[in-house]
């Protein structure tokens, strides 16, 4: 084999091996939780650390939101609607999209009693948009199947 061909072969083998290693590592990573984000299940079963700033998320449990009579304090329950839920306490202005059933990302610390003391509450909205009339219609349809 002449030198040029051997060079090309080296490059091809190198590229192939490198790509394979990268893909393999990425596939392994996809199985890890690297969002530093804790779903309700991890909060409830004690996997999430206490007293450390973390991000937690879940849906706002309908009927759980209670605002303080004075001040901006608000308490609510975040749930995965699959049996795990935990209480959240937040003092501040909630985003417009905050409402029952909405997906929420909260940053804060879990205290010893299992309450999540949030210092930031962000609302995640989905990619579906519809006019109110259609949303009502969809709600009615799912209500009486």
């Amino acid at each position: 084999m002449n030198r040029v061909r051997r060079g090309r072969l080296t490059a091809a083998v190198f590229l192939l091996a490198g790509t394979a290693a990268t893909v393999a590592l990425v596939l392994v990573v996809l199985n890890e939780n690297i969002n530093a984000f804790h779903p309700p299940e991890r909060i409830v079963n004690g996997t999430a650390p206490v007293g450390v700033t973390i991000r937690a998320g879940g849906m706002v449990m309908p009927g759980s939101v209670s605002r303080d009579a004075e001040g901006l304090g608000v308490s609510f329950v975040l749930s995965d609607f699959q049996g795990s839920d935990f209480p959240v306490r937040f003092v501040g202005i909630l985003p417009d999209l905050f409402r029952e059933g909405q997906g929420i990302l909260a940053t804060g610390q879990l205290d010893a009693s299992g309450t999540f003391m949030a210092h930031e509450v962000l609302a995640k909205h989905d990619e579906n948009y519809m006019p109110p009339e259609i949303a009502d219609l969809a709600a009615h349809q799912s209500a009486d199947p």
Partner: protein
Amino acid sequence: MNIAVAQVRRDFLVAFHARADAVHPVAFFALTVVLFGLGMGPERHAMGALAPGMVWVLALLATMMATEGLFRRDFEDGTLEQLLLHGRPLFVAVLAKLFAHWCVTGLILTALSPLAGLMLQVPPEGLPVLAASLALGTPALTLIGAIAAALTVGLGRGGVLAAVIALPLFVPVLIFGAGASLSAASGASPAGELLMLGALLAAALTLAPFAVGLALRVSQEY
């Protein structure tokens, strides 16, 4: 693979004779760590949560400083032209050169990072992960930074320009590097972030040597 061995030996020799090139980035790193420690004042004890990120940013800047002039000496004395003309695979020579360079910069920064972490109040349990994340991250930074260094090598004072080009590309490495140290410092498992750093390093190792070769050819042509 003689070319790789020869290149590494030659670059170690050059590094030994031009020790200042290796000492300056390390001194920069140590001094900025001290400055941060002093600048924070009496609230130092509250730095724990921020410190891994700070050490990471400082190590990143030191790596950028070191990498920016990586090809300049070779460009000025004509060695680079020989490298491009010798007809053997350029990416092998580039990889060897970057390996030698990382040994005298990134590796030293990695070795110093637990000390820097201690000075900036990183929780002790976060220190091994801080060093591990830098061990995986600094070679990736060197590889990416080398692309910018190669693109700007012909310009008299390309330092700031190389940084403007390279720093955006550093972002993913910084996110997962600092993320790993922060996870460890807060008691969570850093495995995901470290694996992701490994994936970034593998990707940089695979692609960057070719991009550097291409950039060197563009820069050397005139």
